[in-house]
């Protein structure tokens, strides 16, 4: 034996592809199997829309979205107002049926009340979860500023309604719980306390936080729009007023932070503050004072090594015997009346004899000619067959002196 629930679930299972297709929008008779559509329609999973279209049952779609955590940009929050009204009506009926003979009806009412309390609890929790998800993700990935603003307004309205419903829920639940306790319906009172009253404070606090976030988002959206507008107008002004360079303003006591944005100056090797710039001069003076004291130069205890150039003492050079002989020869020639033979004069002078006769002869000829004396070389006799000889064995020095240029020419 099968049950209707199993049949419905079997139908959904057999035609899961079509259910999945229908989840994202409307399906048409031409695009799906007629048998599948018929089966799902029989299970109330599909509902006809228009002439040839079908849509998924809203509750089924909601269930699947909930299961898949699909949150559309404009997700409606679960409505609890009607459930509160339903709960209030149930309590009135329970209160009426409390002393009735039909206890089965009362049990059914209490069960319905319990289900309503659970539904309310589940709906509020789900609403808060959706809102928290949407707020933390900046309301989903809407693609334009206008949509975002519209979405923010939408959720602000939704949260305002939900907040009003929570206030009403608190009032109704407290009333029912109090009356149920008085009337001895302890199980119902405990269910209300645990399911609703104990959580109300947390729900209201959470909802208040969401509303604050949404208000901030709305403010931010308005700010963004205003910034766009001012950007456009600034651009227009710059284009239309080319002479506008800036404006003069008395700065307020508290200057906005962004105007005080600063950067440290790059290090420069030589700072030359202008004399008129008082602040820089003061700062420089302060920095100079904060510098460590200058180090005193302490002399090295060990004197540096000094080097002295040592020069050899001048050596008095003694004239050689030949030079002495030359001086005496010149003196002798000066006082002589007739030419003097250099070979003969050598024989009489000891210093002259220190040289060989031929060396003395050349040395004396050159010395006498240097002193501009007239020197006559006595050539040897030529050999046979020669006109003259190339050698000489003596010379005679005359006391007469020649002019300097004559002496040079004679040489």
């Amino acid at each position, binding site marked *: 034996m099968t049950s209707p629930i199993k049949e419905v679930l079997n139908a959904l299972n057999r035609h899961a592809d079509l259910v999945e297709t229908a989840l994202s929008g409307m399906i048409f008779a031409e695009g799906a199997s007629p048998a599948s559509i018929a089966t799902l329609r029989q299970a109330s999973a599909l509902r006809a829309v228009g002439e040839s279209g079908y849509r998924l049952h809203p509750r089924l779609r909601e269930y699947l979205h909930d299961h898949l955590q699909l949150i559309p940009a404009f997700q409606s929050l679960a409505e609890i107002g009607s459930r509160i009204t339903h709960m209030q009506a149930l309590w009135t009926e329970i209160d009426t049926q409390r002393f009735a003979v039909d206890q089965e009806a009362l049990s059914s009412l209490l069960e319905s009340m319990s289900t309503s309390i659970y539904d309310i609890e589940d709906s509020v929790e789900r609403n808060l979860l959706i809102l928290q998800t949407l707020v933390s993700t900046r309301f989903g990935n809407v693609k334009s500023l206008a949509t975002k603003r519209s979405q923010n307004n939408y959720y602000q309205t939704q949260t305002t309604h939900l907040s009003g419903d929570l206030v009403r829920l608190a009032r109704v639940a407290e009333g029912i719980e109090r009356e149920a306790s008085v009337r001895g319906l302890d199980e119902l009172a405990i269910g209300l306390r645990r399911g609703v009253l104990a959580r109300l404070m947390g729900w209201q606090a959470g909802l208040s936080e969401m509303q604050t976030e949404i208000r901030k988002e709305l403010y931010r959206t308005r700010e963004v729009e205003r910034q766009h507008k*001012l950007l456009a107008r600034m*651009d227009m002004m*710059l284009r239309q007023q080319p002479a506008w360079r800036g404006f003069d303003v008395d700065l307020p006591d508290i200057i906005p932070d*962004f*105007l005080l944005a600063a*950067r440290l100056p790059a290090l420069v090797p030589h700072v030359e503050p202008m004399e008129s710039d008082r*602040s820089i001069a003061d700062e420089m003076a302060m920095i100079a004072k904060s510098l460590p004291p200058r180090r005193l130069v302490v002399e090295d205890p060990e004197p540096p090594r000094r080097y002295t150039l040592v020069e050899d003492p001048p050596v008095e050079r003694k004239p050689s015997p030949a030079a002495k002989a030359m001086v005496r020869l010149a003196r002798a020639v000066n006082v002589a009346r007739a030419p003097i033979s250099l070979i003969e004069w050598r024989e009489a002078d000891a210093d002259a004899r220190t040289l060989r006769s031929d060396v003395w002869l050349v040395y004396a000829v050159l010395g006498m000619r240097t002193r501009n004396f007239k020197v006559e070389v006595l050539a040897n006799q030529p050999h046979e067959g020669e006109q003259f000889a190339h050698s000489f064995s003596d010379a005679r020095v005359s006391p007469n002196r020649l002019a300097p240029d004559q002496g040079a020419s004679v040489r």
Partner: protein
Amino acid sequence: MPRLDSALKRLAEGCFVCEAKYPDEYEALLDAGGRTEAERWLGAIGYRLARLSGDGAFFMAHAVATTEMRAQLREELKSVRGKLEPVVAILESIRQAQGRDPQIHSGDMLWESELSEVIRQSSTLERRVMEMPDIHGARVGESTNERVRRMLVQLEAEGYVVETNPTTKGYKVTGKIDYLYQLIEFIASNTPHLSDDDVVDEVVEQLRIDAPPTEVDPPPAGDSGTQQDRSGEPDGPTGTPAP
């Protein structure tokens, strides 16, 4: 903490440390310990750590505004056009190219190819971009794509965007953009040029060529006509400033 060291260097250089451009440094400053250390370090040299907004970029600000500094700020505001002109024109062109969905805030992505394509498709935008002055290195006769590339490169040089995808030429808007918006906001609140407090847009029904000629009752006192949001659009509805 090497990231904090780097963050302090960036702050000292006058950079705006945001998540888009300096993610590691930004994270170091988000940390309570790092922020305290940065505040201590900056305080020791006469500055302080500031943010452009609650969750905006960090930057280094003067701890105390001296009289000389105030005078200097006034002088800078007298020639503020130089700071605004190249960047405002480029950003406004990008905003117009993005149509009804402008994305020119911190963290938004700009794609060179996407912008180039949109600008090429609009003769007005293309003319505006090609006639735009103050684009570094712009040459007469270059293509629209080349000009858009130069615009983005200039924005990057100014620190307002950072190239995050060199292959596809994707640029991310940095937190410094908030500095520009705050500067414009400051100008708007201190000059009559950008303020629209005294402006009432008026649509005179008789002048509308698409409306049938109807008898229009004079508006009641204090109501000068239909309020229109000008939204700063140059081609918006005709507006007549109230005297």
